[in-house]
């Protein structure tokens, strides 16, 4: 959608061209990504003035490492949201993939790259299963993934007897604890790489465009020859893989695959999963995506959490703040959208 402003201004008198350029600038200034950047800078300044420890090497490193996982969780939900659906089982799938990876490393003594592939394959399989059931039943993804969230987690707990795998290959855990240039976690680079790949997918590949088209208008997409069912299954498969990546990142960071790492039924991942994409401007009704927005949104959320914890303003109230943030984000987005529509900027 971006760039239409310039195209329209061709052959229009200079005066209007100037106002067109101003509109384009205004549009950038009102975009989610710009807003998020401003907020990130603003809060970084606030936190570092109140508590100088915020800018310490370790604090920055920890922030990058934690946000890497949250960004991945956000991506995992984002790829399903673009089809107009949801995936409540991201946490469940993430934990299942992590536990499977842990099992392969501990019980089968597999080298870690193979075990990681195994974990990701588990994530892909569970995601594909979600997609398959949704497409075949024709029911909304909400109720299907609500059920599978319970099933995946229940089976995982049953098979593992709720015990952790702590015998994780040292090479793998050292990856999660490595520091590049003193402050950058390689995990953040993994998330950035995933972001780049997803951007390429949605911007330059037919598959990505078909995913967006399916989300924008499923019927129209179907009529124009897109195999909608297959596309939806792919989106869920991709979501499963990304959830698996997030789960394995946690394993590499903590050095153990723990069944409770995403809370009861993986519910603890739900809020970060939605916060990132919603803050970043991904439409919940589908059809529009912002990978950079999700990246920045998840980063902002992690930064706020870290900063507030550092300032010791009631760790127990954290969930309340995050909930209000989500509420504020959707309300501001609504106001912004109606403003843009009134000024005919969208």
């Amino acid at each position, binding site marked *: 959608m971006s760039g239409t402003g310039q195209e329209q201004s061709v052959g229009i008198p200079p005066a209007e061209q100037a106002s067109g350029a101003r509109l384009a600038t205004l549009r950038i200034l009102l975009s989610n990504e710009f807003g998020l950047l401003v907020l990130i800078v603003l809060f970084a300044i606030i936190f570092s003035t109140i508590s100088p420890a915020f800018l310490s090497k370790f604090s920055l490193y920890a922030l990058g490492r934690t946000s890497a996982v949250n960004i991945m969780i956000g991506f995992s939900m984002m790829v399903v949201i673009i089809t107009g659906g949801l995936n409540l089982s991201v946490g469940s799938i993430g934990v299942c993939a992590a536990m499977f990876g842990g099992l392969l490393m501990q019980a089968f003594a597999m080298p870690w790259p193979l075990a990681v592939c195994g974990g990701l394959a588990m994530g892909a399989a569970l995601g594909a299963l979600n997609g398959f059931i949704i497409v075949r039943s024709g029911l909304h993804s909400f109720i299907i993934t609500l059920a599978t969230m319970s*099933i995946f987690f229940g089976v995982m707990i049953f098979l593992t007897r709720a015990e952790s795998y702590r015998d994780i290959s040292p090479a793998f855990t050292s990856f999660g604890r490595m520091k590049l240039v003193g402050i950058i976690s390689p995990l953040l680079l993994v998330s950035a790489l995933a972001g780049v790949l997803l951007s390429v997918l949605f911007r330059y590949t037919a598959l990505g465009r078909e995913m967006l088209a399916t989300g924008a208008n499923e019927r129209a997409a179907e009529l124009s020859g897109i195999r909608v069912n297959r596309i939806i299954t792919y989106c869920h498969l991709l979501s499963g893989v990304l959830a698996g990546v997030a789960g394995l990142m946690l394993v590499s960071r903590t050095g153990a695959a723990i069944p409770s790492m995403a809370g009861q039924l993986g519910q603890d991942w739900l*809020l970060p999963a939605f916060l990132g994409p919603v803050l970043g401007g991904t439409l919940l009704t589908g059809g529009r995506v912002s990978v950079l927005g999700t990246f920045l949104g998840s980063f902002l959320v992690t930064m706020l959490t870290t900063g507030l914890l550092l300032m010791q303003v009631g760790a127990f109230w954290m969930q309340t703040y995050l909930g209000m943030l989500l509420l504020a984000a959707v309300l501001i987005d609504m106001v912004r959208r109606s403003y843009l529509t009134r000024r005919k900027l969208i």
Partner: protein
Amino acid sequence: MSRRFWETDWFGPLMVIVVAVAVVSALNPSFLSPFNIQVLLLAIAVNAMIAFSQMIIIAIGQMNLSVGAIGGLSAIAFAGMMEVWGIPWPIAAILALALGVLAGVANGVLVALTGISAFVITLASLSVYKGVNLGITEAQPFYKIPDVVKGLGNDTFLHPLPWLIIPCVLAALLLWYLLNRLPLGRSILAVGGNEHAAELSGISVRRVVIVAHAISGLLAASAGIMLVGRLQLGQPTIGDDWLILSFAAPVIGGAILSGGHVSVAGTLLGVAIVAIFTQVLVLFNIDPFLVQVVLGVLILWAVGVNRFREVRALKHSAQVAS
């Protein structure tokens, strides 16, 4: 319009219950012992409130992820007011119920006025309410619960009928009356069936949405208060595991998630099915971890059956028309 009894929402679940009870009691006679029935009824009483709380929102075609958070917040408010402020229990219960209504109204107002999907609003309010709960309790339970409340939460008034079954039956009757006999109930179903048509026919959709969320909050709060009596302490974790159950029971009872069609009797039977299956896992020493799997499978099975019935009904009406 009159449907044959085997086409009603409650017939399928009722058959499942009859067969399950017959099979289980044949294999293990202690299943029908008065004590076991009392345990079953206690579970059903609380879970039915949770299920009704979600059912009324399903009726308007929305979802409420915050039922557990509202229930938990009301539960710790109830226990906390009694322990910290020494408020007598009936007043504390009323105040906690009012808190539940308030939390529900907040959900309803936000959904109705902004037009943002109930999923996102209640996901946000879920963490706000849960955060307030944790902020107040710092994850520590309230222990000083009056003996009367403990008694009401566990004892029977007529063996093997527990006290807790009374509010449950009352809620079921009132909800049935509301949805089937009162104009407000018809409006709720109309909004769920087709919001636009309801608006055009003069129903204030906003008002209906807010009222439905208020009722949902009230029911969730009652479930929380009842659990305080049953567990004999104000646990901050009350409500954490309600979400799956709250959808499972109405869906087993034939509720259609896009709205406009719910069944009070079906939902009650759905709760009973879940309670019986859970009990069976315990009675036969099968792993209790499998409860989650059973719940998930029940949901999938129920939505599949509902879908099948819906499609068949459509075909049937098409045949009649042609």
